[in-house]
C-alpha cells in the first residue's frame, strides 16, 4: 500500500499539485461501471425493493400500499409454506451432515496415495457437471416403483419389497435427498481433498514418528487444521440448499400433493403461477433472512479473523 501511495503522489506532483480524485484512475472507474451497477442496482436495490414490497398488499401489480406484517402472517399460516420450511429443514440438515461426512471420508480415501486417483475423482465428481433437472429426472426414473429399484429387487424374489420414496408423502423428501447427495458430494469431496493437500506433509511425518495411528491423526490433527475448509464448505452447502428449486421441480414437481414443496418453489409459484406477488415477496424475504442467519456469523468469523493476522 505504501508503494501505491508513492506512485500516486508522484503523479500528482507531475500535475503541479492539483490532485483530482475524480479523474485519477478514470479508465478503471469507467471499466468498473458494470460491477458498480450490479452491486448497487441489482444486489442492493432489488433486494431492498423486494423487502419493501413484502410489506404491501401487492397482488398482481406492485403497489405501495403498506399493510404491515399481513403478508407474513398469512405466509406463516399457510400449510404449504409450513411444509416447505419443514422439508427445507430436513433436507438441509441431513444434506449438510451427509455431504460433509461422505465428502470428508471420500477425500481421506483418495488422499492415501492410491492408484487411479484421477479416475476415481472423475467418477465421483461428474454428477456435479449435470444440472439439477437432469439429476432429478434420472433419479425419478431409478426410484420409479414400477420399473426401478423396487421392481428389480422384487424380481429377484423379495415379493414384498417396498422402496417407493417418491410416492409417499412421508418419505418423498428423502428421495430428493438421495438425488441431491449424488449430485453434490463430489464437489464437497474435491474441496476437502484440496484442503488436505494443503496440509504440510511434515505434519504427517511428525505424527508417524510420534506413532499416532492414521485415523487418530485425521480426527485430532487434520480435522482441526481444516476448520476453515469445513466452515467455508458448510456455508456453501447452506447457501445452495436454500436455493433448491430445480431438483424438486424435475424430480417430484412438489408432489405427491404438496409433500415435497420447498420455499424457492413457493416463491416462484406465487409470483408467476398465481400472481400473488405479495406472498412471493414475503416468502423470498424469509429466504433472505435465513441466508443472513448463516452468513453473518460466518463473515464475522472469516473476515474478523483475517484482519487480526
Amino acid at each position, binding site marked *: 500500500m505504501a508503494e501505491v501511495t508513492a506512485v500516486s503522489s508522484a503523479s500528482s506532483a507531475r500535475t503541479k499539485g492539483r490532485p483530482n480524485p475524480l479523474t485519477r484512475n478514470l479508465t478503471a472507474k469507467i471499466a468498473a461501471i458494470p460491477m458498480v451497477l450490479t452491486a448497487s442496482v441489482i444486489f442492493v436495490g432489488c433486494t431492498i425493493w423486494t423487502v419493501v414490497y413484502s410489506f404491501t398488499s401487492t397482488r398482481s401489480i406492485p403497489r405501495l400500499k403498506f399493510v404491515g406484517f399481513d403478508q407474513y402472517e398469512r405466509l406463516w399460516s399457510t400449510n404449504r409454506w409450513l411444509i416447505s420450511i419443514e422439508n427445507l429443514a430436513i433436507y438441509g440438515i441431513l444434506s449438510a451432515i451427509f455431504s460433509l461426512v461422505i465428502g470428508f471420508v471420500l477425500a481421506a480415501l483418495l488422499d492415501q496415495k492410491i492408484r487411479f486417483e484421477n479416475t476415481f475423482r472423475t467418477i465421483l465428481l461428474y454428477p456435479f457437471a449435470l444440472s439439477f433437472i437432469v439429476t432429478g429426472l434420472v433419479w425419478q426414473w431409478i426410484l420409479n416403483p414400477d420399473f426401478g429399484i423396487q421392481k428389480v429387487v422384487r424380481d429377484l424374489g423379495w415379493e414384498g419389497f417396498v422402496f417407493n420414496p417418491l410416492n409417499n408423502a412421508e418419505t418423498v423428501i428423502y428421495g430428493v435427498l438421495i438425488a441431491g447427495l449424488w449430485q453434490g458430494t463430489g464437489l464437497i469431496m474435491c474441496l476437502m481433498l484440496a484442503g488436505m493437500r494443503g496440509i504440510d506433509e511434515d*505434519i504427517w511425518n*511428525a505424527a508417524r514418528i510420534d*506413532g499416532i495411528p492414521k485415523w487418530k491423526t485425521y480426527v485430532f490433527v487434520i480435522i482441526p487444521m481444516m476448520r476453515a475448509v469445513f466452515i467455508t464448505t458448510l456455508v456453501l452447502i447452506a447457501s445452495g440448499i436454500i436455493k433448491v428449486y430445480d431438483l424438486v421441480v424435475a424430480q417430484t414437481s412438489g408432489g405427491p400433493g404438496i409433500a415435497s414443496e420447498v420455499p424457492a418453489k413457493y416463491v416462484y409459484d406465487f409470483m408467476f403461477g398465481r400472481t400473488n406477488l405479495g406472498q412471493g415477496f414475503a416468502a423470498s424475504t424469509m429466504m433472505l433472512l435465513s441466508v443472513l442467519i448463516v452468513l453473518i456469523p460466518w463473515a464475522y468469523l472469516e473476515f474478523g479473523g483475517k484482519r487480526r493476522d
Partner: protein
Amino acid sequence: MSSVSVRDISLNFGAIRVLQDLNLEVEEGEFLVLLGPSGCGKSTLLNCIAGLLDVSDGQIFIKGRNVTWQEPKDRGIGMVFQSYALYPQMSVEGNLSFGLRNQGMARDKVRERVDRAAKMLQIENLLARKPAQLSGGQRQRVAIGRALVRDAEVFLFDEPLSNLDAKLRSELRVEIKRLHQKLTNTMIYVTHDQIEALTLADRIAVMKGGVIQQLDVPHTIYNRPRNLYVAGFIGSPSMNFLDGEIVAQDGGLVFRLGSHEVPLQDYVADIDLRPAANAVFGVRPEHVEVFQGDADGSKPTFPAVVDLEEPMGADSLVWMTLEGQQLSARVEASRRFRRGDEVRVAFNLPMTSVFDRQTEDRM
C-alpha cells in the same frame, strides 16, 4: 558399536536413482552433518533413516537393531522438521505430550517428561500457548522438545534452522550445540548451510547426486577436500582454482602455471603425486599472501595485477589476474589496493590442494 549404521542403501523413485549404494556409520554420541545442495539426497537419506521412506535396497541398523522394516515410531528416533510441523490446534503442552499419551503412558509420567524437556529448552512459560502465538525461534524449540520427550536414542534434524533469519539462526545454532553436549545423544543433522555444518559437526558428510563425496571431521573437509566438488562447495569466499600441469623438475615436482613454476616439495599429498598434463591448483584466499613492493625473499613469489578490491569488514578480498587466471586473496582490511597495481603473491603450500582435472580427485 555404531549408533546408526546405513548399509548399501539405494532408493529409486521410478527410474530416478536418488540414493546409490550408500554406506554410513555414525558413532555413539556423534554429531553428524549431512551437507549438500538441494536435491543431493541428504533429506532423502534422513527420511530413510527415520523410516518415513521405504528404501529400495539395503539395510538400516539403529543401536545394532535392524530397523529396515520398522515403523518410524519403533526406531527410537526423534525428528525435527524444517517447517516445525507442530500440531497447530494443540497447545505447546499438547504438542509435546500427544505422542506419549497415545502410547498409553501414565499421566504423571507424561507430565514429568514434558516438564523436563520444557525446562531444558526454557519453554516452561510457553506450555499453554498455541504454536501460532510463538515466534519462529520458540516454535523451533518446541519442535526440538517434541523429539526430546520421546527419550530417543537418535535425533534427526531436517534443516531445522533454514526458516529463521540470520541472527536467530546463529543463536539457535549455539543452542543446539549446547544441547548436544548436555544430552550426548547421537544426532544427524541435514543442512545446505556450510557454516552450520562446520560449526556443529563432529563429522561432515558432503553429498552430491545421492553419493557421499567425503566424510570426515570439519578441519579435514576444509583443508584436505577429497575432490574438486567438495573443495568448491566448502568455504566462503570460495577456493581459487588455477589450471596448469604437474611436471618433474630437478628431482622434485612443480606445478607449472604458464611461465611460472610453483615448487611442490611442501605439499601434503593424499596419494603419490605424479606428473599430470591437466591439473588444477586449488588455494583458499586466506592462504594467498600479497606483497606490495619487495617480498621477503624466503619463498617463491609470482607477479599479479590487481583487478578490484572487495572490503568485507574484518578483512578485504583482493581480486587479481595471474597468468591470465583469476585469483583472490584475503588481506588485512587496512591495506589499500588500486586497479592496475602490480603485486607479487605467494602460496601457503601445505594448505593447498592439487586436483587431477580428469578424475577431479585430490592428489
